[in-house]
């Protein structure tokens, strides 16, 4: 403690000199808070890899990614080609640590803006710090409904959130119903932490507003050891559609138990997270054929922007970009673009640039219709599509305009 | 009558460890409880101290029914004990150990410390007062247990094999200590299986066998009793035969 305090005292003059030094070196520092350790470390590390790719795309010329802002040139062109530098902070999945991170990044590392922080609970506390300090905070991945609507001035979100997903699923099911398949009886199976609970309640609310009744809601704990009673419940009530809001371990367990108990619901929709985790397709892909998922990111056709970005990511990590990682990366790119447009590292200028953001679909590496924020800071052009597990991986199947493969129903599972 | 136990029964499963045992104790007595191993004397002793609840019978102490009373309440009434295997409070000094006993009647720290020092001097532990209790050997620990019990200012002190495992020199000092305690006006029950010690120390002896009181009387009478001789010798002889 003594040693640290002494360091602290010494650090003051050094810190005071920092911003000037930073500008002289021509770098702009952005704080990025992610769960680099703990339960969600896999997701956090993947986001880190993607963000480092984004930094590379911005700082060095990538003319082949042309429509994407900042790709063609080197650095932030309106800031004299200043380089973007990310300061990483590990939130360990804890709201309190996330708060410490935000304070440290703002006061110690003098970042001009913040991104992150994966878990909605951490985003909540970290963005509250940003609000108090007047530093822009943008989340590209946290989806809890209560994040926007707090009356914050400095908070922005590019990703679609609960109500958007609910609309997506119901639109999709309405479309499927036109083919003559029954979709009236919907069951929601969700894990009982904030993610599952909040998405499930969004779906129920939107469904109620459209006059669609949710026949059954099953809430379970993701770290349980056995899900066969829940599968038996489903088998017994025979819903037309089962929507899973699950983490990875439980999603895997459900698919295995489906096979054991010989149960195939006609339509299985997984809400991202567990179903999008690469280890899901790897471990139970061959017994989950036909499972549907939502995704805002689809690599698409060769030559398209998402395809190229995905190729670069794969080159670095050996993996394809998954939805969550891509959404976070897109959020970070939007932030960098806003700083560039602001032409300044002053927080207020960046905030105004964010408010004025109006990106078109072809400027994005992800499948949104664009990026434009409403008064709460929510992107109103956020969008996802339905993808389906066919063979080794997911392919986009809905809406028709963006599909690359044919929707195959009912859920086949295993052979 | 200071302490009176009537028809005490204690069973473990189907085994009757104590089977309708009686005991009476007058003020200022020093009596011995003897018997071969497994005779039930320790269990009976624990019933008196409150560590075991009897399944039958009753115990009265200073005209109060204490059969099912908790040990700490018995201590408050003036019934103190030591353990066969000493239980000392690790992490405390010798004086602090004794102070725990002293706090029973002297809630204030300084009064308790003064009482502790008085008892430590009386038991010959004054020199070790500030040492951590872990530095004491077995004789020291046994002595400390006695000191601790004395600090609670009991009327009756129950000593459970306080002399077992000591060398003959240590036994002599221990006997002297027990005598001094008795002279200071405290009534004592001493559990031992060394007949010689009992012989020298006590006025009256109760002999246990198979959970029952086999004989009672002065040490000389009891040791002359053929049943007692058989209980001791017969068992010993039996043990040597394969």
């Amino acid at each position, binding site marked *: 403690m003594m040693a640290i305090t002494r360091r602290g005292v010494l*650090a003051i003059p050094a810190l005071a000199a920092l911003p000037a030094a930073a500008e002289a070196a021509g770098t702009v520092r952005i704080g990025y808070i992610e769960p680099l350790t703990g339960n969600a470390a896999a997701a956090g590390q993947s986001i880190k890899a993607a963000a480092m790719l984004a930094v590379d795309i911005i700082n060095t010329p990538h003319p082949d990614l042309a429509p994407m802002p900042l790709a063609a040139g080197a650095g932030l062109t309106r800031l004299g080609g200043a380089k973007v530098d990310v300061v990483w902070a590990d939130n360990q999945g804890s*709201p*309190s640590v996330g708060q410490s991170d935000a304070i440290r990044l703002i006061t110690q590392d003098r970042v001009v803006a913040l991104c992150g922080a994966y878990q909605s*609970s951490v985003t909540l506390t970290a963005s509250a710090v940003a609000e108090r300090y007047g530093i822009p905070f943008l989340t590209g991945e946290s989806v809890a409904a209560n994040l926007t609507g707090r009356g914050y001035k400095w908070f922005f979100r590019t990703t679609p959130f609960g109500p958007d997903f609910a609309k997506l699923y119901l639109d999709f099911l309405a479309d499927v119903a036109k083919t003559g398949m029954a979709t009236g009886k919907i069951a929601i199976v969700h894990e009982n932490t904030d993610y599952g609970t909040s998405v499930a309640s969004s779906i129920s609310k939107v469904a109620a507003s459209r006059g669609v009744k949710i026949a059954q809601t099953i809430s379970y704990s993701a770290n349980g050891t056995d899900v066969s009673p829940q599968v038996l419940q489903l088998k017994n009530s025979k819903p037309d559609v089962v929507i899973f809001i699950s983490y990875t371990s439980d999603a895997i367990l459900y698919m295995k138990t489906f096979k054991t108990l010989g149960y195939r619901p006609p339509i299985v929709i997984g809400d991202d997270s567990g179903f999008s985790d690469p280890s899901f397709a790897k471990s139970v892909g061959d017994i989950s054929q036909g499972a549907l998922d939502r995704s805002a990111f689809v690599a698409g056709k060769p030559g398209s922007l998402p395809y190229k970005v995905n190729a670069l990511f794969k080159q670095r990590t050996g993996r394809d970009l998954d939805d969550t990682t891509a959404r976070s990366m897109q959020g970070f790119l939007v932030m960098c673009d806003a700083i560039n447009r602001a032409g300044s590292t002053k927080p207020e200028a960046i905030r105004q640039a964010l408010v004025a953001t109006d990106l078109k679909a072809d400027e994005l590496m992800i499948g949104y219709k664009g990026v434009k924020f409403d008064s709460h800071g929510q992107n109103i052009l956020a969008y996802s599509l339905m993808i389906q597990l066919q063979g080794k991986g997911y392919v986009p199947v809905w809406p028709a305009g963006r599909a690359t493969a044919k929707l195959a129903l009912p859920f086949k599972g295993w052979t | 009558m200071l302490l009176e136990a009537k028809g005490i029964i204690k069973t473990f499963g189907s085994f009757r460890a104590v089977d309708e045992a009686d005991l009476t104790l007058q003020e200022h007595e020093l009596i011995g409880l003897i018997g071969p191993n497994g005779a039930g004397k320790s269990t009976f002793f624990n019933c008196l101290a409150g560590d075991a609840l009897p399944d039958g019978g009753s115990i009265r102490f200073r005209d109060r029914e204490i059969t099912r009373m908790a040990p700490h309440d018995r201590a408050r009434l003036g019934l103190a004990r030591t353990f066969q295997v000493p*239980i000392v409070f690790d*992490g405390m000094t010798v004086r602090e150990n004794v102070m725990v006993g002293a706090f029973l009647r002297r*809630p204030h*720290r*300084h009064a308790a410390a003064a009482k502790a020092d008085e008892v430590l001097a009386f038991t010959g532990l004054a020199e070790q007062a500030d040492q951590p209790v872990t530095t004491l050997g077995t004789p020291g620990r046994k002595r400390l247990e006695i000191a601790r019990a004395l600090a609670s200012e009991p009327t009756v002190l129950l000593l459970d094999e306080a002399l077992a495992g000591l060398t003959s020199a240590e036994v002599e000092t221990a006997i002297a200590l027990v005598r001094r305690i008795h002279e200071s006006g405290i009534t004592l029950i001493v559990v031992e299986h060394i007949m010689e010690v009992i012989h020298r120390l006590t006025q009256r002896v109760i002999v246990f066998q198979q959970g029952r009181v086999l004989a009672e009387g002065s040490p000389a009478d009891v040791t002359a009793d053929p049943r007692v001789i058989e209980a001791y010798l017969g068992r010993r002889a039996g043990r040597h035969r394969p």
Partner: protein
Amino acid sequence: MKNFPRVLLIAAAAALVAAPFLTGNPFYQRIAALTALAAISASAWNLIGGYGGQVSFGHSVYFGIGAYASLLAYTKLGVPPIAGAPLGVLASFALSVIVGLPSFRLRGHYFSMATIAIAALAEVLVTNWGFAGGAIGLMGPASPRSLADLLFRSALPYYALFVAVLASLLGFTYLMQRGRMGFYLRALGSGERAAESLGVPIRRYKLYALLVSGAFTSLAGSLYAVMVGFIDPGSGFGILVSVNMVVMSALGGAGTLFGPLVGAIILVPLEETTNALLGGGSSGAAYVVYGAIIMLIARFSPGGLAQWWPLLSGKGRRGAA
């Protein structure tokens, strides 16, 4: 001259307390506040876990109760979060009597196991309790409505508040340690049968210790919620919340006056700065180190650092008289 180390110690302590006011660095100020907060809950745990020898892994329940009390008071009654702290303390008393008292029959490992299960049970119940925000948790005020909301940009006001609470807790502990209660707790912690035979009413003293310990842990939870402005089942009731209290106490010296504080002063800045320096390059390394520290203490120095430095026990001179 005999008092020289003592004078030095007091001077060092004063410097330590004042240091955060002098640095002007918000991050270090926050570390100081977090350290003081951790020291409160660890010192509170120490009353029953250290002095009383009842190793509880379930103190997170008290912490969670305090944190939820303050944010429930805010969300349901609209009062400043800190106003919920007394409610949390009341609830902690109820918990001590209803759940603690029957658990005191259990000794050693059995008691520890029961506390783990109780904490797990509480976490599951709160997760499924819609009124208290369920799994999503509860939020504090987004921006201060008045000073009473205790929402500050700087960590210094929190630090001052925490140090005041910590000082009163340590003051209580000091008096307790010197008096009958301290002796009785230490006695029953190391030999229940013997303590009982000397007239120590064991269950009553365990309950006394738990009442104070639980109340201060609950208060720590309330203060946490006031500062962080958010609580969810994991950060209130999770097992790691209890682990931190146990580790800090054991490292500094369980059952000593300053042990938990020293543990907190070592571990909190260590964790915060390694997190800052490594930026997460160290997946889970902090808890690997924690685990190793615990094992090393258990194996080589069950008395914690206090075993090597008796001044920590707060007794100063040897002997008690």
